[in-house]
């Protein structure tokens, strides 16, 4: 731990020896990951102007859109405020936060992958024994993130230049800025944990916090001026105002934050030994109480269940707290008030807001269920399942331990989200809890698909992430873009009743439940029949 005990530091230039080689190596390892993430992100952004032109052909349509959404706090919380009705500004508004979050997650994954992952696996030792400077690995990891974000910025700038060069440049640089802020943040977090999984989880939590802060700030203010918005790097992105009178100085915030965080990461990295961390693992018990596969599964997953539970409860509290304000803000706008009164007045409005928030949490719970189901896959491919299954543990019993946590855990986090709403909003406790729980059949269909993929096509198990991603994309972006019903129907969430406010539809819910059970059962049959891979 006290690497600086001798106060000796290698000469400056040698600290970076080997960086170029490591960078090339990292880019080679990520030759699929970076193009796919950046490509999907860029595609989502660059297809937006076209979609918007089709949907809102005339300037009058766009002006209406701006007026409606600017007045709607729930829309602002989800997407952010609109600053102008040009196609460019609407594009930046519509995709900005999500593209920024995507860039943040990719950057975070890249940095953790090339720093803490390498140390944890022991590969870093081998690398460090070569002609590699003390700071080379961290530098190469950050440069990898720079490359990915620079490519994204370039694609966005070039692709949107038709809407206005300055705006395109601002959006591109802003997205890259968000990416680098979280890349350097991940570099700091990676100094504190010995486990890459924990580093990823903590940084993902910070991305989520940035999203929630911005959402809270934007629902309270319609021009991004809330303090909460200014605390979040995702809020900086909207306050850069691409295509709407760019505030170039906001870029300094990104640069400043990235530089300061980067410096902190280097300082921390220089003060510790390779493979060690500032939060070292304590010794464990000499004897254990674990006696069943289910207990082991719980032991392995309890940390992540706890993290998700806290996140969902807090999200419920935050969004619950926003709910009353939604109606008040809309009340100032005559046009919007008229619309919403037709929708059922104040009650209809808060219900609509609550339904969209609960629906969003349901979509995110789909990510939890996929991650939890795929722990089975991780256990199998890492070789830990094999000796375990060589004991008197049947495959189904082993799998059911993890699946109980996957399916039961998703019920738990949705329940906690509902309780969070109860704390934050305090009214309609029963209906909101019901709305949270009614998401579960759709969540479980996604989980069932993950079980099916894992059980029957283990090589394609990671495709479950693709399923969750598609469901998320349809749920978030689909309705706002008036996507065709056939596409919306692909997502199980599209078939859920809109609660609270709408009527309960037992038929659809039961069909989804049966489907989820059927998919999971088919997956388990496949698992029992196939060879275990190693």
């Amino acid at each position: 731990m006290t690497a600086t005990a001798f106060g000796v530091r290698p000469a400056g230039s040698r600290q970076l020896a080997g960086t170029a080689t490591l960078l090339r190596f990292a880019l080679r390892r990520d030759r699929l990951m970076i193009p796919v993430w950046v490509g999907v992100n860029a595609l989502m952004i660059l297809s937006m102007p076209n979609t918007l032109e089709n949907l809102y052909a005339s300037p009058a349509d766009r002006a209406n859109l701006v007026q409606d959404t600017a007045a709607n706090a729930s829309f602002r919380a989800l997407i952010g405020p609109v600053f102008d009705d040009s196609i460019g500004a609407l594009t930046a508004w519509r995709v900005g936060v999500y593209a920024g979050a995507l860039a943040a997650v990719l950057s975070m994954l890249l940095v953790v992958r090339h720093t803490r992952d390498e140390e944890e696996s022991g590969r870093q030792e081998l690398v460090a024994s070569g002609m590699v400077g003390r700071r080379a690995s961290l530098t190469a990891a950050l440069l990898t993130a720079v490359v990915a974000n620079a490519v994204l910025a370039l694609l966005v700038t070039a692709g949107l230049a038709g809407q206005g060069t300055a705006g395109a440049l601002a959006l591109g640089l802003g997205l890259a800025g968000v990416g680098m802020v979280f890349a350097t943040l991940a570099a700091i977090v990676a100094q504190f944990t010995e486990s890459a999984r924990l580093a990823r989880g903590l940084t993902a939590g910070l991305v989520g916090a940035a999203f929630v802060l911005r959402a809270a700030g934007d629902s309270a203010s319609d021009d991004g001026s809330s303090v909460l918005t200014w605390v979040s790097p995702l809020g900086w992105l909207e306050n850069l105002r691409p295509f709407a009178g760019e505030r170039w100085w906001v870029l300094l915030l990104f640069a400043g934050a990235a530089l300061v965080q980067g410096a902190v990461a280097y300082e921390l990295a220089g003060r510790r030994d390779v493979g060690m961390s500032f939060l070292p693992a304590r010794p464990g018990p000499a004897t254990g109480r674990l006696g069943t596969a289910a207990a082991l599964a719980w032991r392995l997953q309890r940390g992540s269940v706890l993290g998700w539970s806290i996140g969902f409860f807090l999200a419920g509290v935050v969004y619950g707290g926003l709910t009353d304000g939604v109606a008040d803000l809309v009340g100032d706008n005559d046009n919007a008030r008229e619309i919403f009164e037709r929708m059922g007045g104040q009650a209809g409005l808060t219900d609509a807001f609550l339904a969209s928030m609960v629906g969003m949490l349901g979509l995110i719970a789909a990510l939890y269920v996929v991650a939890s189901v795929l722990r089975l896959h991780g256990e199998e491919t890492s070789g830990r399942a094999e000796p375990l299954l060589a004991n008197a543990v049947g495959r189904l019993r082993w799998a059911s331990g993890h699946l109980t946590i996957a399916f039961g855990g998703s019920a738990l986090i949705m329940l906690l989200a509902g309780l969070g709403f109860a704390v934050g909003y305090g009214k309609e406790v029963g209906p909101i809890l019901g709305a949270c729980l009614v998401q579960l059949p759709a969540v479980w269909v996604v989980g069932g698909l993950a079980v099916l993929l894992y059980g029957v096509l283990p090589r394609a198990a990671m495709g479950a992430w693709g399923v969750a991603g598609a469901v998320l994309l349809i749920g978030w972006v689909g309705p706002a873009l008036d996507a065709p019903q056939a596409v919306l129907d692909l997502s199980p969430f599209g078939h859920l009743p809109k609660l609270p406010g709408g009527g309960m539809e037992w038929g659809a819910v039961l069909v989804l439940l049966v489907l989820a059970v059927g998919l999971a059962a088919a997956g388990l049959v496949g698992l029992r029949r196939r060879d275990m891979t190693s």
Partner: protein
Amino acid sequence: MTKAITVSGLHKSFGRTHALDGLDLDVETGEVHGFLGPNGAGKSTTIRVLLGLLRADSGGAQVLGRDPWADAVEVHRRIAYVPGDVTLWRNLSGGEVIDLYGRLRGGLDKGRRAELIERFELDPTKKGRTYSKGNRQKVALVAAFASDVDLLILDEPTSGLDPLMEEVFQRCVEEERERGRTVLLSSHILSEVEELCDRVSIIRKGRTVESGSLADLRHLTRTNVTAELAGPPNGLSHLPGVHDLDVQGMRVRLQVDTDKLDAVLRSLSESGVRSLTSTPPTLEELFLRHYQDDVPEEVAAR
């Protein structure tokens, strides 16, 4: 004697690769059986079929009298398995893993657990990720040797152990034999196999090429003979089973099929023997004979 493991005509393919191509294996109850073969010969695949982790394409396998695929859980209750590359859960201590494995088998002998931890010099409080390769193996070995089971299946279990620990391992296997347990030991360390095993099976390219006690196997191969004679040797080259004959004056070196040794000795003594050394083939020679591709494949009598 009853058989602990019987395998006959086992086939298993992965895509176009024939990992097992009619493999046979018999392990008697109470013996330590060596399982030898070059990398990729199908040792681990066989073991994973025996553990019910893989399903054989055809052929029969019985472990402790049961079908390892259909009755996996019942079979596993009486088995302890040590893989060649143990991976542990990063946040579980070694002691927790040992106890978990013990409970998931037929149970754990507390006294023996403590004794084994001492003998293997294992720190059971460390977390999975902080163990070195050798120490991870020790966790699995302690769990296996302390478990109350009838059959131990060890797949190259000593990789990463230092020579002192290798010695402890060998003592432990001998103790298992004394307690009447059966051990299937897949290994590359021939001295270990020679030291421990009652019988061995050598496999190559997914099939068994030799099987039997070491004495049986030696009998099937060649003995090295070096002799100083009183007179010139006579007619040695015409004797059946003589190979690599090298005569330099009165000095003779040759290899002879062990079952033809008698005739060679008689011929030598006709010339008058001044000194004679005869060395049985080492396991290594047995092994190499089957490993080298240029040696024609022959299936010895089993």
